[in-house]
């Protein structure tokens, strides 16, 4: 389906949808036609939700997680253990780990992993804020919980070297089970166990 559509408006909308991950032009056209059949107000609400999301989204001052306030609920929670910070890729990992009910510390959301192919280098990630937090008095332990893909491992190693001068303990959640697996796909019980069984981060990673 590479031919141009008979309407420029239709063409523009289909183009935008097909830029989404996993959406081809065929699916994009189906979605756009679906929206065309909906009442005007529904589509307006849909469009506004996206525009508001992009313009008003806020990242927590401390952990960089997505939130509507200056500081997220987890960081604001006085009952959380402030001596431990778990380093994760994005909000999906926070949701997965919270789902286990096995972790009471804080998070630091990196905002991605190193991948020059995708144009992501250290400056695109929340690294400096992590080092600042790690230097904080309360902090005793930093837990690596990035995916075990080659890029995830490389990012962990990079952060480990950055964190070494802080003198703080660096650990990693134990995940022998699914190599190459990403956090959000691991089941809650396994994930919970791997948080409890975390070990000192070792330079001799498995590949």
């Amino acid at each position, binding site marked *: 389906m590479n031919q141009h559509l008979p309407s420029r408006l239709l063409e523009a909308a289909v183009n935008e949808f097909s830029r989404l991950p996993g959406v081809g032009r065929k699916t994009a056209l189906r979605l756009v036609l679906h929206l065309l059949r909906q009442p005007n107000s529904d589509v307006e609400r849909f469009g506004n939700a996206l525009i508001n999301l992009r313009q008003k989204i806020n990242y927590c001052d401390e952990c960089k997680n997505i939130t509507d306030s200056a500081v997220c609920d987890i960081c604001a929670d006085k009952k959380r253990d402030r001596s431990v910070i778990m380093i994760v890729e994005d909000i999906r990992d926070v949701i997965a780990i919270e789902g286990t009910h096995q972790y009471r510390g804080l998070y630091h959301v990196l905002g991605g992993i190193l991948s*020059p192919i995708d144009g992501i*280098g250290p400056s695109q990630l929340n690294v400096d804020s992590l080092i600042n937090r790690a230097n904080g008095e309360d902090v005793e332990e930093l837990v690596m919980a990035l995916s075990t893909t*080659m890029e995830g491992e490389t990012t962990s190693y990079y952060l480990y070297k950055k964190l070494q001068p802080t003198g703080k303990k660096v650990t990693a959640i134990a995940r022998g089970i699914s190599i*190459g697996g990403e956090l959000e796909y691991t089941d809650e019980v396994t994930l919970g166990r791997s948080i409890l069984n975390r070990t000192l981060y070792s330079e001799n990673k498995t*590949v």
Partner: protein
Amino acid sequence: MFLKKIELLNFKNYEEASLTFDPHVNCFTGSNGGGKTNLLEAIHYMAMTKGYFSTTDAQNLRHDASMFHIQAEFVTERGLDTVSCTLRSGQKKQFLVNKTEYDRLGEHIGRFPVVVICPNDHIIITGGSDVRRRFIDGIISQVDKSYLFTLMSYNQALLQRNALLKKVAVSGFMDAGTIDLWNERLVELAGPVYEKRTAFINEFQPLFNASFNFICGGTESTDLQYQSSLSDEDFKAALEKNLKKDIELRYTTLGIHKDDLQIFINGYPVKRYASQGQQKSVTIALKLAQFEYLSKIGYSKPMVLLDDVFDKLDDNRVSRLMELVSQDRFGQLFVTDTSETKLSSVFQKVQVKHKIFHVSDGKVLQTEQQLHEL
């Protein structure tokens, strides 16, 4: 281990087919273009999760079909294993063993080992170094899973480093720390690959030598030389030394992705000096040595897929090859040839029971005298 049954749906020129195999020798015969090689391709899928004769999965969809499905039953010491592969166009292929999906497709490699011998194999000698690396990697992967995963990680890290080189070349700005990071990663991943390739060639060399002399009935001396930039210098230092050049070319010029294998007969490199006949013997010998190696190191005797080789080999080499078959050293054999008479006479000569399938226009017929009992 042997392949008992295979079923195809919309695969290549097959709309639907179901074949039940002999545990030893199976022959596919019929005119060219009828679909003989496509059956070998389907069997290869079941063993290696991908085709041997095709480069993409989509190439194997039947004309106008939007999905293909292959299903096979393997008889093993533990019982029956059902393997299936489904491709829906535009989607990731689904590969199941006993209805379970693997975490990583590569985990399947080596469970049902396979060796392919086909007329195009001469490119191992005449082609670029990538063909020889693929040959080596295809063997080691079948006996060592961590090798395959390390190699895949290395290739991924290589893509990342090349992307970074390009970025540096375009922007003119270099973050030395980040280059070092990917250098370290490559070094760490290249090490085990280099060591395993070295060890493999050492073990493979005598098997190749014996196979070569068996095929041509001679007493020549052969040699296999593994060539890698890692054997000349420290890889980390080499990456640092070549950085400027790499940035200019936007490409990593050194590493195990450049390794090569040189083959010698009596001290002369085969690629330049061997006759066509010798090259044919070398090619077959490499594949026989692959079979020997997999039998020795792997869990079970590999299946052997012989595509149209009788036509391309002289009678001498054919009968040598068949001697091996008759010695019961081979695992399950699948053979294609246009001539049924030729196939029958080859197997009659060595007194081997075989099953014949007539293939034409995507249809398979097992004739009355399907089991040629002797």
